[in-house]
């Protein structure tokens, strides 16, 4: 009877340790499986994505509607293409919507800001696989400083 209790206890212990290892591998380290629930994909081309990373949030006015999926370089015009994985809950954004890469706080992580456009008759909605035409790139601090210095020099 005691030996049974011991065996059950050790089995529980080992199972718990494996669960922790699995959690480390899948949830904490980078081999994670992303996303839960139904989603659809939109694509956006940017000139510069700055520090955007896969799984960064996509926000409409601060509300998270999805996550960045894959980021790769378009083979023809060499611009970064970002896959936007958006929850099925939020559908029917108008074709005139725009996306921009924003930073939360001064040193925070970067996220995709999604700005729904005006919708009236004759405007189509964004569906699976569509490209968003109107994009604004990430703000790169060095470029800003460079522009500032350049304009300063011209004034002299």
């Amino acid at each position: 009877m005691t030996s049974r209790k011991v065996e059950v206890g050790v089995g529980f212990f080992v199972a718990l340790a494996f669960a922790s290892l699995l959690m480390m591998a899948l949830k904490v380290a980078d081999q994670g499986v992303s996303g839960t629930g139904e989603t659809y994909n939109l694509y956006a081309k940017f000139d510069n994505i700055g520090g955007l990373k896969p799984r960064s949030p996509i926000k409409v006015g601060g509300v998270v509607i999805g996550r960045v999926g894959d980021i790769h370089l378009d083979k023809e015009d060499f611009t970064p293409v970002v896959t936007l994985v958006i929850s099925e809950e939020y559908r029917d954004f108008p074709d005139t919507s725009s996306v921009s890469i924003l930073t939360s706080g001064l040193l925070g992580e970067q996220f995709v800001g999604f700005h729904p456009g005006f919708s009236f008759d004759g405007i189509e909605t964004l569906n699976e696989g569509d490209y968003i035409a109107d994009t604004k790139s990430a703000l790169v601090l060095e470029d800003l400083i460079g522009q500032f210095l350049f304009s300063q020099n011209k004034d002299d």
Partner: protein
Amino acid sequence: MAFLASLGRKTLNIFSTVGRAFLILVGAIVARPQPLKNTSLVIKQIYIVGVQSLLIIGVSGLFIGMVMALQGYTVLVDYGAEESLGPMVALSLIRELGPVVTALLFAGRAGSALTAEIGLMKATEQLSSLEMMAIDPLRRVIAPRFWAGVISMPMLALIFSAVGILGGHLVGVDWLGVDSGSYWSIMQSSVDFEEDVLNGVIKSFVFAVVVTWIAVFRGYDLIPTSEGISAATTQTVVHSSLAVLGLDFVLTALMFGTN
């Protein structure tokens, strides 16, 4: 002359202690590999050493994760970088606190018990009786306890880190309002499985060998009186804590120091 003699005696003592410690280690591991015959003994010891430590490990892990999230948040929020809470909690738990705190708790919870148990066996001459019956006490008593400690501690450290990260999530996300997705996603992009998780496991394996070895040796080698047992139990906790903290610096320098 007397000074020289006492110096010589001390040196000889240290060397013979180290020698006996190695003999026990070798006796418990290398010279007598009997995995099948002793499995049930090892399982019983894993129950005593590992399963019964689960509660203290889980509770400490939870609270350490929660405290780190709270402290980290108050600092990070000033820079608007509270989203980096996830990697901060995860990396410090997986790399350092998980293995080290588990080893310290293990030394106090299980190591001292091992020393006292073996010491009392020696004081009541149970070990000598085993030898009388032609049963090697190293094989029957020491080896299962040693292996149980070595097997249990890395698993305890993993559980500690996992529970701590969940505790950090509890405070950071559910209480202080850090975005849950950011907590996990930035953690995933900064934690590497081989670099961080596996190195943490290796660390805690080394600590396991050292702590269990010290505990077992102190028990086997003590002076068989009630004072001897109490002194040996104290020495187990003190020596293994110091060894863990010192080794931790060396291992960290080897693993993470060069990049």
